[in-house]
Protein backbone atom coordinates (compact mmCIF):
# COMPACT_ATOMS: atom_id res chain seq x y z
CA UNK A 1 0.00 0.00 0.00
CA UNK A 2 1.32 3.40 -1.03
CA UNK A 3 0.07 6.36 0.98
CA UNK A 4 0.62 10.07 0.53
CA UNK A 5 -0.27 12.24 3.51
CA UNK A 6 -0.70 16.01 3.23
CA UNK A 7 1.90 16.42 0.50
CA UNK A 8 2.69 20.00 -0.50
CA UNK A 9 5.28 21.29 -2.91
CA UNK A 10 6.27 24.62 -4.31
CA UNK A 11 9.25 25.69 -6.34
CA UNK A 12 10.99 29.02 -6.57
CA UNK A 13 8.74 31.38 -8.44
CA UNK A 14 5.81 28.99 -8.37
CA UNK A 15 3.79 28.46 -5.25
CA UNK A 16 1.32 25.67 -4.65
CA UNK A 17 2.36 23.17 -7.30
CA UNK A 18 0.93 20.52 -4.98
CA UNK A 19 -1.41 21.52 -2.16
CA UNK A 20 -1.97 19.22 0.73
CA UNK A 21 -2.46 16.06 -1.31
CA UNK A 22 -3.51 12.87 0.46
CA UNK A 23 -4.24 9.62 -1.28
CA UNK A 24 -3.74 5.91 -0.93
CA UNK A 25 -3.17 3.20 -3.50
CA UNK A 26 -3.88 -0.36 -2.42
CA UNK A 27 -1.86 -3.43 -3.36
CA UNK A 28 -2.85 -4.67 -6.77
CA UNK A 29 -4.82 -1.51 -7.49
CA UNK A 30 -4.67 0.03 -10.96
CA UNK A 31 -4.86 3.80 -10.64
CA UNK A 32 -4.86 6.40 -13.38
CA UNK A 33 -4.03 9.99 -12.50
CA UNK A 34 -5.40 12.50 -14.95
CA UNK A 35 -6.11 16.20 -15.20
CA UNK A 36 -5.04 19.29 -17.13
CA UNK A 37 -1.43 19.97 -18.15
CA UNK A 38 0.54 21.79 -15.51
CA UNK A 39 -1.78 20.54 -12.78
CA UNK A 40 0.99 18.78 -10.80
CA UNK A 41 0.65 15.14 -11.97
CA UNK A 42 4.25 14.63 -13.06
CA UNK A 43 5.51 16.40 -9.97
CA UNK A 44 3.56 13.96 -7.86
CA UNK A 45 4.97 10.94 -9.72
CA UNK A 46 8.54 12.25 -9.38
CA UNK A 47 7.91 12.76 -5.70
CA UNK A 48 6.85 9.14 -5.26
CA UNK A 49 10.04 8.03 -7.08
CA UNK A 50 12.16 10.30 -4.87
CA UNK A 51 13.35 12.62 -7.64
CA UNK A 52 11.64 15.58 -5.95
CA UNK A 53 11.25 16.02 -2.19
CA UNK A 54 8.02 17.43 -0.78
CA UNK A 55 8.05 20.68 1.21
CA UNK A 56 5.80 19.00 3.74
CA UNK A 57 3.90 15.77 4.18
CA UNK A 58 4.72 12.09 4.28
CA UNK A 59 5.01 9.20 1.84
CA UNK A 60 4.49 5.69 3.23
CA UNK A 61 5.11 2.37 1.53
CA UNK A 62 3.53 -0.57 3.36
CA UNK A 63 3.41 1.59 6.46
CA UNK A 64 7.10 2.51 6.32
CA UNK A 65 7.93 6.21 6.02
CA UNK A 66 9.98 6.61 2.83
CA UNK A 67 9.79 10.41 2.63
CA UNK A 68 13.51 10.89 3.25
CA UNK A 69 14.76 7.90 1.27
CA UNK A 70 16.90 8.58 -1.81
CA UNK A 71 15.93 7.59 -5.36
CA UNK A 72 18.13 4.49 -5.12
CA UNK A 73 16.69 3.46 -1.75
CA UNK A 74 13.14 3.84 -3.02
CA UNK A 75 13.96 1.84 -6.13
CA UNK A 76 15.28 -0.91 -3.87
CA UNK A 77 12.22 -0.62 -1.62
CA UNK A 78 10.05 -1.46 -4.64
CA UNK A 79 9.21 1.63 -6.66
CA UNK A 80 9.70 1.82 -10.43
CA UNK A 81 9.23 4.85 -12.60
CA UNK A 82 8.90 5.14 -16.38
CA UNK A 83 9.90 8.64 -17.44
CA UNK A 84 7.69 10.79 -19.60
CA UNK A 85 10.77 11.68 -21.62
CA UNK A 86 13.06 8.65 -21.73
CA UNK A 87 16.75 9.30 -21.29
CA UNK A 88 19.28 8.53 -24.03
CA UNK A 89 22.63 6.91 -23.32
CA UNK A 90 25.53 6.74 -25.75
CA UNK A 91 27.07 3.29 -25.68
CA UNK A 92 24.56 1.67 -23.30
CA UNK A 93 22.63 -0.99 -25.21
CA UNK A 94 18.99 -1.93 -24.81
CA UNK A 95 20.21 -5.25 -23.42
CA UNK A 96 22.39 -3.46 -20.81
CA UNK A 97 19.53 -1.25 -19.72
CA UNK A 98 17.02 -4.09 -19.32
CA UNK A 99 19.62 -6.14 -17.44
CA UNK A 100 20.29 -3.22 -15.09
CA UNK A 101 16.56 -2.84 -14.55
CA UNK A 102 16.08 -6.50 -13.72
CA UNK A 103 19.04 -6.39 -11.32
CA UNK A 104 20.75 -9.40 -12.86
CA UNK A 105 22.65 -10.39 -15.97
CA UNK A 106 19.81 -11.30 -18.27
CA UNK A 107 20.37 -13.67 -21.16
CA UNK A 108 19.55 -12.28 -24.58
CA UNK A 109 16.45 -14.47 -24.71
CA UNK A 110 15.19 -13.22 -21.34
CA UNK A 111 15.82 -9.57 -22.23
CA UNK A 112 14.11 -10.05 -25.60
CA UNK A 113 11.03 -11.31 -23.79
CA UNK A 114 10.44 -7.86 -22.28
CA UNK A 115 10.96 -6.14 -25.61
CA UNK A 116 8.47 -8.43 -27.33
CA UNK A 117 5.94 -7.58 -24.63
CA UNK A 118 6.09 -3.92 -25.56
CA UNK A 119 5.77 -4.76 -29.23
CA UNK A 120 9.35 -4.34 -30.38
CA UNK A 121 10.82 -7.00 -32.61
CA UNK A 122 13.46 -7.96 -30.10
CA UNK A 123 16.24 -9.16 -32.38
CA UNK A 124 16.35 -5.78 -34.14
CA UNK A 125 16.72 -3.85 -30.92
CA UNK A 126 18.50 -5.85 -28.27
CA UNK A 127 22.05 -4.82 -29.25
CA UNK A 128 21.24 -1.28 -30.26
CA UNK A 129 22.42 1.65 -28.22
CA UNK A 130 19.80 3.63 -26.33
CA UNK A 131 20.82 6.75 -28.25
CA UNK A 132 19.43 9.28 -30.68
CA UNK A 133 19.18 6.66 -33.44
CA UNK A 134 16.01 5.35 -31.76
CA UNK A 135 12.75 7.17 -32.37
CA UNK A 136 10.72 8.71 -29.57
CA UNK A 137 8.16 5.90 -29.72
CA UNK A 138 10.84 3.21 -29.63
CA UNK A 139 12.52 4.81 -26.62
CA UNK A 140 9.18 5.08 -24.91
CA UNK A 141 8.52 1.37 -25.30
CA UNK A 142 12.01 0.45 -24.10
CA UNK A 143 11.36 2.69 -21.09
CA UNK A 144 8.19 0.71 -20.34
CA UNK A 145 10.13 -2.56 -20.77
CA UNK A 146 12.61 -1.45 -18.08
CA UNK A 147 9.74 -1.09 -15.62
CA UNK A 148 8.27 -4.47 -16.62
CA UNK A 149 11.68 -6.07 -15.99
CA UNK A 150 11.80 -4.69 -12.46
CA UNK A 151 8.58 -6.35 -11.27
CA UNK A 152 8.24 -4.10 -8.24
CA UNK A 153 5.46 -3.40 -5.74
CA UNK A 154 4.72 -0.02 -7.27
CA UNK A 155 5.07 0.78 -10.98
CA UNK A 156 4.64 4.39 -12.06
CA UNK A 157 4.26 5.45 -15.68
CA UNK A 158 4.29 9.09 -16.70
CA UNK A 159 2.21 9.47 -19.88
CA UNK A 160 3.26 6.17 -21.42
CA UNK A 161 1.08 6.76 -24.48
CA UNK A 162 2.89 9.94 -25.56
CA UNK A 163 4.70 9.34 -28.85
CA UNK A 164 3.23 5.88 -29.36
CA UNK A 165 1.40 5.34 -32.62
CA UNK A 166 -2.20 4.20 -32.76
CA UNK A 167 -1.38 0.68 -33.89
CA UNK A 168 0.92 0.13 -30.92
CA UNK A 169 -1.50 1.79 -28.58
CA UNK A 170 -3.77 -1.24 -28.48
CA UNK A 171 -0.78 -3.38 -27.53
CA UNK A 172 0.10 -0.91 -24.84
CA UNK A 173 -3.30 -1.36 -23.24
CA UNK A 174 -2.73 -5.12 -23.35
CA UNK A 175 0.66 -4.65 -21.67
CA UNK A 176 -0.93 -2.83 -18.75
CA UNK A 177 -3.81 -5.29 -18.47
CA UNK A 178 -1.41 -8.23 -18.47
CA UNK A 179 0.82 -6.54 -15.95
CA UNK A 180 -2.19 -5.86 -13.73
CA UNK A 181 -3.14 -9.55 -13.82
CA UNK A 182 0.36 -10.90 -13.31
CA UNK A 183 2.10 -8.76 -10.74
CA UNK A 184 0.82 -8.44 -7.23
CA UNK A 185 1.55 -4.75 -7.11
CA UNK A 186 0.10 -1.32 -7.63
CA UNK A 187 0.16 0.33 -11.03
CA UNK A 188 -0.07 4.10 -11.28
CA UNK A 189 -0.35 5.67 -14.71
CA UNK A 190 -0.49 9.34 -15.55
CA UNK A 191 -2.56 9.61 -18.68
CA UNK A 192 -5.01 11.64 -20.69
CA UNK A 193 -6.18 8.70 -22.77
CA UNK A 194 -9.76 7.60 -22.33
CA UNK A 195 -8.83 4.01 -23.20
CA UNK A 196 -6.34 3.92 -20.35
CA UNK A 197 -8.84 5.58 -18.02
CA UNK A 198 -11.28 2.84 -19.02
CA UNK A 199 -9.15 0.03 -17.59
CA UNK A 200 -8.46 1.76 -14.27
CA UNK A 201 -9.80 0.56 -10.93
CA UNK A 202 -9.61 4.11 -9.68
CA UNK A 203 -9.22 7.49 -11.35
CA UNK A 204 -7.71 10.48 -9.56
CA UNK A 205 -8.11 13.92 -11.09
CA UNK A 206 -5.45 16.45 -10.18
CA UNK A 207 -5.95 20.04 -11.17
CA UNK A 208 -4.15 23.15 -10.00
CA UNK A 209 -2.19 21.12 -7.41
CA UNK A 210 -5.24 19.58 -5.80
CA UNK A 211 -7.22 16.38 -6.05
CA UNK A 212 -10.49 17.55 -7.49
CA UNK A 213 -12.10 14.16 -7.86
CA UNK A 214 -11.37 10.51 -7.23
CA UNK A 215 -13.33 7.32 -7.56
CA UNK A 216 -14.24 4.58 -10.01
CA UNK A 217 -14.34 5.39 -13.69
CA UNK A 218 -18.14 5.52 -13.61
CA UNK A 219 -18.02 8.14 -10.88
CA UNK A 220 -15.22 10.21 -12.36
CA UNK A 221 -15.52 9.97 -16.15
CA UNK A 222 -19.04 11.37 -16.14
CA UNK A 223 -18.08 14.53 -14.33
CA UNK A 224 -14.88 14.90 -16.37
CA UNK A 225 -16.84 14.97 -19.60
CA UNK A 226 -19.17 17.59 -18.17
CA UNK A 227 -16.30 19.98 -17.60
CA UNK A 228 -15.67 20.27 -21.31
CA UNK A 229 -16.31 23.43 -23.29
CA UNK A 230 -19.50 21.88 -24.67
CA UNK A 231 -21.13 21.59 -21.26
CA UNK A 232 -20.32 25.13 -20.35
CA UNK A 233 -21.75 26.32 -23.59
CA UNK A 234 -24.95 24.42 -22.93
CA UNK A 235 -25.20 26.04 -19.51
CA UNK A 236 -24.88 29.46 -21.04
CA UNK A 237 -27.67 28.57 -23.45
CA UNK A 238 -29.94 27.82 -20.54
Amino acid sequence: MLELKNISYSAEGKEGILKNISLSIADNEFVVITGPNGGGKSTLAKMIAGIISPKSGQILLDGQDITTLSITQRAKAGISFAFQQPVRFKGVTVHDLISLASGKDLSTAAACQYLSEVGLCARDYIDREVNASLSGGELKRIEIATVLARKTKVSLFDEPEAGIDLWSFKNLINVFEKMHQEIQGSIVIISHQERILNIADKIIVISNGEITKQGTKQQVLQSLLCQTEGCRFMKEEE
Partner: protein
Amino acid sequence: MDTILKSLLEQVADLHDIPVGAYNIRNNGQSEGRNSTASIQIVPKTDGKSGIDIIVKENTKNESVHIPAIITQAGVNDLVYNDFYIGENADIVIVAGCGVHNNGTEASIHEGIHRFFLSKNAKVKYIEKHVGEGEGTGERIINPQTHIEAGENSYMEMDTVQLKGVDSTNRISSAKLADGATLVIKEKIMTHGKQTAETSFEVELDGKGSSANLISRSVAKDNSKQVFRSIINGNEQCYGHSECDAIIMDKGIVAAIPEITANHLDATLIHEAAIGKIAGDQLTKLMTLGLTEKEAEQQIINGFLK
Protein backbone atom coordinates in the same frame (compact mmCIF):
# COMPACT_ATOMS: atom_id res chain seq x y z
CA MET B 1 58.53 -14.39 -19.86
CA ASP B 2 58.11 -12.85 -16.41
CA THR B 3 54.71 -12.09 -14.92
CA ILE B 4 54.84 -8.31 -15.47
CA LEU B 5 55.62 -8.80 -19.14
CA LYS B 6 52.91 -11.44 -19.43
CA SER B 7 50.31 -9.28 -17.77
CA LEU B 8 51.12 -6.25 -19.94
CA LEU B 9 51.04 -8.34 -23.10
CA GLU B 10 47.63 -9.58 -22.08
CA GLN B 11 46.38 -6.05 -21.46
CA VAL B 12 47.71 -4.36 -24.59
CA ALA B 13 47.49 -7.16 -27.14
CA ASP B 14 45.14 -9.76 -25.62
CA LEU B 15 48.03 -12.19 -25.79
CA HIS B 16 48.09 -15.05 -23.34
CA ASP B 17 51.05 -16.74 -24.91
CA ILE B 18 53.32 -16.45 -27.90
CA PRO B 19 50.93 -15.47 -30.69
CA VAL B 20 50.28 -17.52 -33.79
CA GLY B 21 51.31 -15.98 -37.06
CA ALA B 22 53.67 -13.06 -37.51
CA TYR B 23 54.82 -11.21 -34.43
CA ASN B 24 57.51 -9.09 -32.89
CA ILE B 25 57.62 -8.52 -29.14
CA ARG B 26 59.69 -5.55 -28.09
CA ASN B 27 60.77 -5.37 -24.46
CA ASN B 28 62.73 -2.38 -23.11
CA GLY B 29 63.89 -1.52 -26.59
CA GLN B 30 65.06 -5.03 -27.52
CA SER B 31 63.33 -7.69 -29.55
CA GLU B 32 62.14 -10.43 -27.22
CA GLY B 33 60.91 -12.69 -30.02
CA ARG B 34 60.04 -12.46 -33.68
CA ASN B 35 58.34 -14.62 -36.24
CA SER B 36 57.63 -14.18 -39.95
CA THR B 37 55.22 -16.27 -41.99
CA ALA B 38 55.11 -17.19 -45.67
CA SER B 39 53.03 -14.09 -46.41
CA ILE B 40 54.18 -11.65 -43.73
CA GLN B 41 57.86 -10.77 -43.42
CA ILE B 42 59.15 -8.94 -40.36
CA VAL B 43 62.70 -7.64 -40.84
CA PRO B 44 64.81 -5.36 -38.65
CA LYS B 45 65.68 -1.95 -40.05
CA THR B 46 69.10 -1.66 -41.64
CA ASP B 47 69.32 2.13 -41.79
CA GLY B 48 70.55 2.48 -38.24
CA LYS B 49 67.14 3.30 -36.78
CA SER B 50 65.62 0.98 -34.23
CA GLY B 51 62.56 -0.78 -35.57
CA ILE B 52 61.16 -3.18 -38.09
CA ASP B 53 59.64 -3.35 -41.54
CA ILE B 54 56.50 -5.43 -41.82
CA ILE B 55 55.89 -6.53 -45.38
CA VAL B 56 52.56 -8.14 -46.16
CA LYS B 57 52.35 -9.94 -49.50
CA GLU B 58 49.52 -9.18 -51.90
CA ASN B 59 46.33 -11.20 -51.46
CA THR B 60 47.20 -12.22 -47.89
CA LYS B 61 43.92 -12.94 -46.11
CA ASN B 62 42.86 -13.79 -42.58
CA GLU B 63 46.27 -13.29 -41.04
CA SER B 64 47.31 -11.16 -38.13
CA VAL B 65 50.45 -9.38 -36.99
CA HIS B 66 51.18 -8.71 -33.32
CA ILE B 67 53.82 -6.14 -32.50
CA PRO B 68 53.41 -5.15 -28.84
CA ALA B 69 56.03 -2.97 -27.16
CA ILE B 70 56.61 -3.27 -23.43
CA ILE B 71 58.70 -1.22 -21.05
CA THR B 72 59.26 -2.58 -17.57
CA GLN B 73 62.23 -0.50 -16.46
CA ALA B 74 62.35 3.09 -15.21
CA GLY B 75 64.43 5.61 -17.09
CA VAL B 76 64.07 3.93 -20.47
CA ASN B 77 63.56 6.15 -23.50
CA ASP B 78 62.49 3.85 -26.28
CA LEU B 79 62.15 5.29 -29.77
CA VAL B 80 61.04 2.89 -32.48
CA TYR B 81 60.23 3.17 -36.17
CA ASN B 82 57.92 0.53 -37.61
CA ASP B 83 56.85 0.59 -41.24
CA PHE B 84 54.04 -1.49 -42.67
CA TYR B 85 53.85 -2.26 -46.36
CA ILE B 86 50.51 -3.85 -47.20
CA GLY B 87 50.24 -5.56 -50.59
CA GLU B 88 47.34 -5.32 -53.02
CA ASN B 89 44.09 -7.01 -51.95
CA ALA B 90 45.57 -8.08 -48.61
CA ASP B 91 43.12 -8.14 -45.69
CA ILE B 92 44.80 -8.34 -42.30
CA VAL B 93 44.60 -7.41 -38.63
CA ILE B 94 47.50 -5.66 -36.93
CA VAL B 95 47.64 -5.53 -33.16
CA ALA B 96 50.16 -3.06 -31.77
CA GLY B 97 49.90 -1.48 -28.35
CA CYS B 98 52.24 -0.44 -25.65
CA GLY B 99 52.47 -1.18 -21.96
CA VAL B 100 54.70 0.71 -19.56
CA HIS B 101 55.35 -0.64 -16.06
CA ASN B 102 57.32 1.85 -14.03
CA ASN B 103 58.30 1.14 -10.44
CA GLY B 104 61.08 3.69 -10.34
CA THR B 105 61.41 7.44 -10.00
CA GLU B 106 62.65 8.23 -13.50
CA ALA B 107 60.29 8.56 -16.44
CA SER B 108 59.80 5.70 -18.86
CA ILE B 109 59.07 6.82 -22.38
CA HIS B 110 57.92 4.93 -25.43
CA GLU B 111 57.72 6.70 -28.75
CA GLY B 112 56.43 4.53 -31.54
CA ILE B 113 56.42 5.98 -35.01
CA HIS B 114 54.34 3.84 -37.31
CA ARG B 115 53.96 4.35 -41.04
CA PHE B 116 51.44 2.46 -43.13
CA PHE B 117 51.56 2.12 -46.88
CA LEU B 118 48.39 0.50 -48.19
CA SER B 119 48.40 -0.68 -51.79
CA LYS B 120 45.34 -0.80 -54.00
CA ASN B 121 42.34 -2.57 -52.40
CA ALA B 122 44.30 -3.44 -49.24
CA LYS B 123 42.31 -3.69 -46.03
CA VAL B 124 43.79 -3.23 -42.56
CA LYS B 125 42.33 -3.28 -39.11
CA TYR B 126 44.83 -1.74 -36.75
CA ILE B 127 44.29 -2.11 -33.01
CA GLU B 128 46.36 -0.15 -30.54
CA LYS B 129 46.00 -0.18 -26.75
CA HIS B 130 48.07 1.81 -24.33
CA VAL B 131 48.41 0.99 -20.66
CA GLY B 132 50.56 2.35 -17.86
CA GLU B 133 51.08 0.77 -14.44
CA GLY B 134 53.52 0.37 -11.58
CA GLU B 135 54.01 1.94 -8.17
CA GLY B 136 56.85 4.32 -8.95
CA THR B 137 56.67 8.09 -9.13
CA GLY B 138 58.43 8.05 -12.51
CA GLU B 139 56.14 9.17 -15.28
CA ARG B 140 54.78 6.75 -17.86
CA ILE B 141 54.84 8.49 -21.20
CA ILE B 142 53.63 7.11 -24.51
CA ASN B 143 53.82 9.19 -27.67
CA PRO B 144 52.56 7.26 -30.66
CA GLN B 145 52.59 8.53 -34.20
CA THR B 146 50.65 6.95 -37.03
CA HIS B 147 51.14 8.07 -40.60
CA ILE B 148 49.01 6.48 -43.27
CA GLU B 149 49.20 6.50 -47.03
CA ALA B 150 46.05 4.85 -48.25
CA GLY B 151 46.15 3.69 -51.88
CA GLU B 152 43.27 3.44 -54.30
CA ASN B 153 40.15 1.82 -52.82
CA SER B 154 42.05 0.72 -49.72
CA TYR B 155 40.42 0.61 -46.30
CA MET B 156 42.01 1.27 -42.96
CA GLU B 157 40.35 1.11 -39.58
CA MET B 158 42.28 2.17 -36.50
CA ASP B 159 40.99 1.44 -33.01
CA THR B 160 43.04 3.14 -30.37
CA VAL B 161 42.41 2.89 -26.66
CA GLN B 162 44.10 4.37 -23.61
CA LEU B 163 42.16 3.89 -20.42
CA LYS B 164 44.57 4.04 -17.54
CA GLY B 165 47.95 4.73 -16.14
CA VAL B 166 49.56 6.78 -18.89
CA ASP B 167 50.71 10.09 -17.38
CA SER B 168 51.31 11.92 -20.58
CA THR B 169 50.59 11.18 -24.18
CA ASN B 170 50.91 13.12 -27.37
CA ARG B 171 49.31 11.26 -30.20
CA ILE B 172 49.88 12.40 -33.73
CA SER B 173 48.14 10.82 -36.69
CA SER B 174 48.14 11.81 -40.32
CA ALA B 175 46.70 10.29 -43.45
CA LYS B 176 46.60 10.86 -47.19
CA LEU B 177 43.82 9.12 -49.05
CA ALA B 178 43.79 8.23 -52.74
CA ASP B 179 40.71 7.64 -54.93
CA GLY B 180 38.04 5.59 -53.20
CA ALA B 181 40.12 5.05 -50.05
CA THR B 182 38.41 4.91 -46.65
CA LEU B 183 39.81 5.70 -43.22
CA VAL B 184 38.00 5.08 -39.94
CA ILE B 185 39.64 6.06 -36.66
CA LYS B 186 38.02 5.29 -33.32
CA GLU B 187 39.77 6.68 -30.32
CA LYS B 188 38.91 6.13 -26.66
CA ILE B 189 40.76 7.91 -23.92
CA MET B 190 40.28 8.19 -20.17
CA THR B 191 42.58 10.30 -18.05
CA HIS B 192 42.92 10.52 -14.26
CA GLY B 193 44.95 12.44 -11.69
CA LYS B 194 47.18 14.99 -13.35
CA GLN B 195 47.46 13.14 -16.63
CA THR B 196 47.54 14.94 -19.94
CA ALA B 197 46.54 13.63 -23.34
CA GLU B 198 46.86 15.41 -26.63
CA THR B 199 45.54 14.04 -29.86
CA SER B 200 45.96 15.47 -33.33
CA PHE B 201 44.68 14.17 -36.60
CA GLU B 202 45.48 15.59 -39.98
CA VAL B 203 43.74 14.03 -42.93
CA GLU B 204 44.16 14.92 -46.59
CA LEU B 205 41.26 13.66 -48.67
CA ASP B 206 43.07 13.82 -52.00
CA GLY B 207 41.22 11.11 -53.89
CA LYS B 208 37.87 11.21 -55.62
CA GLY B 209 35.33 9.32 -53.52
CA SER B 210 37.67 9.07 -50.52
CA SER B 211 36.21 9.25 -47.04
CA ALA B 212 37.40 9.66 -43.48
CA ASN B 213 35.55 9.23 -40.22
CA LEU B 214 37.30 10.24 -36.98
CA ILE B 215 35.47 9.38 -33.80
CA SER B 216 36.89 10.30 -30.43
CA ARG B 217 35.26 9.53 -27.11
CA SER B 218 36.97 10.56 -23.95
CA VAL B 219 36.55 10.98 -20.22
CA ALA B 220 38.67 13.42 -18.22
CA LYS B 221 38.60 12.87 -14.46
CA ASP B 222 40.29 14.54 -11.46
CA ASN B 223 42.66 17.29 -12.63
CA SER B 224 43.50 15.75 -15.99
CA LYS B 225 43.61 17.64 -19.26
CA GLN B 226 42.91 16.63 -22.83
CA VAL B 227 43.21 18.37 -26.14
CA PHE B 228 41.66 17.03 -29.33
CA ARG B 229 42.72 18.59 -32.62
CA SER B 230 41.47 17.47 -35.96
CA ILE B 231 42.17 18.84 -39.38
CA ILE B 232 40.40 17.47 -42.42
CA ASN B 233 41.11 18.88 -45.85
CA GLY B 234 38.74 17.90 -48.62
CA ASN B 235 40.68 18.27 -51.84
CA GLU B 236 38.41 16.30 -54.16
CA GLN B 237 34.87 14.98 -54.22
CA CYS B 238 35.00 13.31 -50.80
CA TYR B 239 33.35 12.87 -47.42
CA GLY B 240 34.94 13.76 -44.10
CA HIS B 241 33.45 13.56 -40.63
CA SER B 242 34.98 14.10 -37.24
CA GLU B 243 33.28 13.74 -33.92
CA CYS B 244 34.64 14.53 -30.48
CA ASP B 245 32.49 13.51 -27.56
CA ALA B 246 33.85 14.09 -24.10
CA ILE B 247 32.66 13.69 -20.53
CA ILE B 248 34.32 15.85 -17.94
CA MET B 249 34.30 15.03 -14.23
CA ASP B 250 35.76 16.60 -11.10
CA LYS B 251 38.16 19.28 -12.39
CA GLY B 252 38.90 17.64 -15.71
CA ILE B 253 39.44 19.85 -18.75
CA VAL B 254 38.83 19.01 -22.39
CA ALA B 255 39.44 21.20 -25.42
CA ALA B 256 38.30 20.30 -28.92
CA ILE B 257 39.81 22.20 -31.82
CA PRO B 258 38.34 21.11 -35.13
CA GLU B 259 39.31 22.43 -38.50
CA ILE B 260 37.65 21.41 -41.74
CA THR B 261 38.55 22.91 -45.07
CA ALA B 262 36.76 22.23 -48.33
CA ASN B 263 39.12 22.86 -51.21
CA HIS B 264 36.73 21.32 -53.70
CA LEU B 265 33.09 22.08 -54.48
CA ASP B 266 32.05 18.45 -54.01
CA ALA B 267 33.76 17.97 -50.67
CA THR B 268 31.31 17.27 -47.83
CA LEU B 269 32.83 17.85 -44.43
CA ILE B 270 31.21 17.67 -41.02
CA HIS B 271 32.51 18.25 -37.54
CA GLU B 272 30.68 17.55 -34.32
CA ALA B 273 31.93 18.18 -30.81
CA ALA B 274 30.16 17.83 -27.50
CA ILE B 275 31.79 18.27 -24.11
CA GLY B 276 29.98 18.18 -20.81
CA LYS B 277 29.48 16.43 -17.54
CA ILE B 278 27.27 13.34 -17.24
CA ALA B 279 23.68 14.44 -17.76
CA GLY B 280 21.69 14.55 -14.52
CA ASP B 281 18.72 12.72 -16.00
CA GLN B 282 20.99 9.80 -17.02
CA LEU B 283 22.08 9.40 -13.39
CA THR B 284 18.49 9.78 -12.18
CA LYS B 285 17.21 7.13 -14.59
CA LEU B 286 19.78 4.55 -13.49
CA MET B 287 19.14 5.40 -9.85
CA THR B 288 15.43 4.66 -10.36
CA LEU B 289 16.60 1.20 -11.45
CA GLY B 290 18.26 0.75 -8.07
CA LEU B 291 21.84 1.80 -8.81
CA THR B 292 23.67 4.14 -6.47
CA GLU B 293 24.96 7.40 -7.91
CA LYS B 294 28.51 5.98 -8.10
CA GLU B 295 27.33 2.78 -9.80
CA ALA B 296 25.26 4.82 -12.26
CA GLU B 297 28.29 6.97 -13.09
CA GLN B 298 30.38 3.84 -13.66
CA GLN B 299 27.76 2.32 -15.98
CA ILE B 300 27.47 5.49 -18.03
CA ILE B 301 31.25 5.77 -18.47
CA ASN B 302 31.67 2.07 -19.25
CA GLY B 303 29.02 2.31 -21.93
CA PHE B 304 30.42 5.54 -23.32
CA LEU B 305 33.91 4.06 -23.69
CA LYS B 306 32.80 0.60 -24.79
